[in-house]
């Protein structure tokens, strides 16, 4: 994963130029403030042009940028040292691709659960690139039941390429773990807020994605299959990922329109990897807006509303067939 994309190369070059000029300027030998000002204006205009019109495929790349704020990055900014990480599924092990624990977000004590990716290769290998095994999903469910017992709302961060496809994962019941979470999350009697922060990769994302409110960041994606996977299966050609990304309608705006999510969190120009603080602030804003409403609901109301929310998802026709060519 490159730290910069082809489409933002010129921006990054100009930004580097600004830094150089600033160093020279600060040394006091020459006043370059006018030149710096001119390039800065140029960069800002270019950013609006480039980032304002990203294609679905480019957004899918931004969504998995290696510097994108991870669950632990967001927790650190929002909860500081007050966060207590809790580990393990009590059945098999502790999956490092999903983290969980207790923290305070805004004015609320909450249980936090999220996929965890790394910011470099070593960390990514440790985190299995954010691809959970069954024990990760079972840990998440254990935390949700604990939260329910103590009346703590649940905040979930979704950012995974998908559930891990491997021998151990199959042996230990990847299907069972995902299915179980989908069923049990419809029966959790405390508020659940979900945020797709980066990649919403299929069943591996949905398995911790049954929320009373589901939000996506502007440059995140959420899809039944990755663009590459879809291209490989339908076109038999992974290089058709661009076309697949278009066809799958995996952007936040598509999902909002389809009634699958409740809102889009804005990102700074270029994406959240350029400003973690801002991403954290947007999350807290939504928590403060929605948790007070959800906390007033009874267990039964929460469960019934959540059922209705997901029950209504799908598009079909109910008419007897009239047309016959």
């Amino acid at each position: 994963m490159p730290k910069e994309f082809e489409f933002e190369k010129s921006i990054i070059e100009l930004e580097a130029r600004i830094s150089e000029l600033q160093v020279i300027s600060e040394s006091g030998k020459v006043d370059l403030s006018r030149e710096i000002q001119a390039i800065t204006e140029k960069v800002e205009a270019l950013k609006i042009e480039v980032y304002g019109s990203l294609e679905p495929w480019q957004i899918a790349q931004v969504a998995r940028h290696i510097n994108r704020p991870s669950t632990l990055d967001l927790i650190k900014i929002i909860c500081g040292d007050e966060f207590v990480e809790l580990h393990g599924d009590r059945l098999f092990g502790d999956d490092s691709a999903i983290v969980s624990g207790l923290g305070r977000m805004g004015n609320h004590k909450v249980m936090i659960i999220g996929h965890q990716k790394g910011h470099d290769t070593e960390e990514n290998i440790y985190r299995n690139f954010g691809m959970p095994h069954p024990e990760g999903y079972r840990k998440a469910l254990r935390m949700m039941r604990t939260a329910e017992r103590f009346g703590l709302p649940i905040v979930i961060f979704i950012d995974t390429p998908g559930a891990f496809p491997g021998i151990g994962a199959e042996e230990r019941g990847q299907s069972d773990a995902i299915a179980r979470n989908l069923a049990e999350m419809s029966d959790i009697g405390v508020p659940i807020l979900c945020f797709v922060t980066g990649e919403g990769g299929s069943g591996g994302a949905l398995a911790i994605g049954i929320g009373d409110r589901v939000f996506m960041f502007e440059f995140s994606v959420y899809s039944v299959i990755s663009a590459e996977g879809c291209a490989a299966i339908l076109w038999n050609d992974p290089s058709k990922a661009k076309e697949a990304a278009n066809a799958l309608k995996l952007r936040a705006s598509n999902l909002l329109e389809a009634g699958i999510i409740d809102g889009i969190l804005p990102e700074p120009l270029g994406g959240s990897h350029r400003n973690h603080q801002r991403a954290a602030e947007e999350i807290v804003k939504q928590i403060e807006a929605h948790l007070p409403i959800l906390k007033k609901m009874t267990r039964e109301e929460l469960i019934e509303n959540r059922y209705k929310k997901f029950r209504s998802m799908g598009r079909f026709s109910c008419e007897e067939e009239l047309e016959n060519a």
Partner: protein
Amino acid sequence: MGWFDKLTRPRRDVPSDLWKKCTRCGEVLLIKDLAKNLYLCSKCDQHLRMPLWDRIALLSDDNSFVEVNREIRSVDPLKFVDSKSYGERLKESIAKTDVNEAVTTGRASIEGQPFMLGVMNFEFMGGSMGSVVGEKLTRILEVGADEKLPVIIVSASGGARMQEGIYSLMQMAKTSAAIKKLNRASVPYISIMTDPTTGGVSASFASLGDVNIAEPGALIGFAGPRVIEQTIRQKLPEGFQRAEFLLEHGMIDCVVHRRVLKSTLARILRYLNA
């Protein structure tokens, strides 16, 4: 073998309307014999894919099946086009299978006990789950909860239907939540996994039975074997993701031969059904 033999020998690798080749031992089987033998290979007993209406006949008492929600049909919410449009693919599947979707649902009875039945059809776009499959299954699960009728779902699916994008993913959530409703009402749900049951179907309603049953030799798993091999770059062990492998790893309750499937289901329901 010379070119002449090639011309005169029956082309056994191409199944015609009359022949089918056993997927395990390669034996060439007459379709009319297969239908009489529950689509079991007469040589090695492999459980071959059973056509929809044969399956319904196998699991329900004579003339007891009454289809529901036949009129629910797929639309093309994404205007999805790969090498063909989704609309065209649907039309072709409907023409080929003579049903409107990849699942057929209805009311039936089994040894006199009324129940709701859903049977997936692999011939219809690989049994993939889109909005209609999710909706039809959710409806029979809700009827089951309301009327205290047990539900049996027979799965045969490659997973979610990509052509419906995020809508198809959400069917996993919808069906699983409906099963939870059934659980709360203490109404039994039995899942039968046939060859193949993978992806989003395996990772939702198919794995959530009070009793999970698989047919012998059925391929069952979250990720397809090809995807796993590509990810881990090694060959998979013999028997990996087969019904017997899942039994050994504690993921299913039993592997049941097709000849005794109906009587086994009826017996389990007599125990669980109040």
